[in-house]
């Protein structure tokens, strides 16, 4: 990109700037299949217009995934939509949504490792697309809650039936939501944070 015109590079609007007192940030990752509403959820609670960052996965990254031969040199671009919520004047929360092919999310070093937790957003019409990501989160010890984005024509299952189908332990919260609504998305994030807090109290978080 041409940086010589850097005076015109778009930056945050004045009202979107963080205060100088902002000392640290935390992140939460929202995962789920294509079209399930991850970006909508980020947008409904973010204080800034959602932005997109991307990473190019090249040989070095692909080599760590056992599904790929280390001689593969294909570069793949993985994009992340994200938003921001100021928690206090010192603490900022970032929300990352993960569009695109899920097998690449886990090649992005540090995306999940440092996250406080994750929201697995599911569509009951295509429940199976979330199976793989739940397994990967479990393997990495990333705590998560399951939020069912209630599309009007999607089948409705009782929570316990979903819990059995998803093979989740009784402590993992499962809740319905409508990610277009700020209050509903906020409720999902509150549920995740309460769950993380309960894990902290029980000392089960490793």
């Amino acid at each position, binding site marked *: *990109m041409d940086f010589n015109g850097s005076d015109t590079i778009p*930056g*945050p609007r004045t009202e979107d700037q963080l205060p100088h007192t902002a000392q640290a940030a935390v992140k939460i990752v929202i995962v789920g299949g294509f079209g399930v509403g991850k970006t909508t959820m980020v947008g409904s609670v973010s204080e800034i217009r959602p932005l997109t960052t*991307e990473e190019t996965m*090249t040989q070095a990254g692909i080599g760590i995934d056992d599904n790929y031969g280390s001689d593969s040199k294909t570069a793949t671009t993985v994009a992340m939509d994200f938003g921001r919520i100021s928690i206090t004047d010192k603490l900022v929360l970032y929300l990352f949504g993960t569009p695109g092919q899920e097998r690449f999310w*886990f090649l992005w070093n540090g995306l999940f490792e*440092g*996250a406080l937790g994750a929201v697995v957003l599911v569509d009951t019409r295509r429940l199976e697309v979330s199976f793989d990501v739940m397994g990967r989160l479990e393997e990495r010890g990333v705590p998560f809650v399951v939020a069912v984005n209630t599309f009007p024509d999607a089948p409705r299952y009782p929570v316990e039936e979903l819990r059995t189908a998803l093979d989740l332990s009784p402590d993992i919260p499962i809740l319905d939501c409508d990610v277009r609504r700020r209050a509903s998305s906020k409720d999902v994030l509150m549920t995740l*944070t309460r769950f993380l807090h309960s894990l902290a109290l029980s000392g089960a978080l490793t």
Partner: protein
Amino acid sequence: MTPPRRKRRQQDLPPPPPPPGPAGGAKKSGSPERLFTIAGSVDGARAELDLVTLIVARSAPGPAASPEQAAVLRLCAAPLSVAELSAYLQLPFSAMTVLITELIAAELVQARAPIVRQALPDRSLLEAVMHGLQRL
């Protein structure tokens, strides 16, 4: 009607590779990760940049700054995450970290490390997040 059932992944899969750390984390020389694990920040700590590390300019861009550096310094007059810088400058995350690592080494920016998930979780941090979300 019952939903489809998830089958658990095989438990005997090899464990995921450890995240690259300062000590021997980069397996191949020339891998992009290495560029920011070898650079030291001003206080001598190693600069491990996360998507949500906050970057703050220490001074206005001087005449010696490259156009890329000047653009970063202008953008982070107020704290801004690496992810936001990457989005505004339309640079991939790893390219952004290389640029920021140079700026840290030149003492032109300060990096404020994120709070990451710990083995011993910080209850007061989670309580602060809950209170912050409640005000939304």
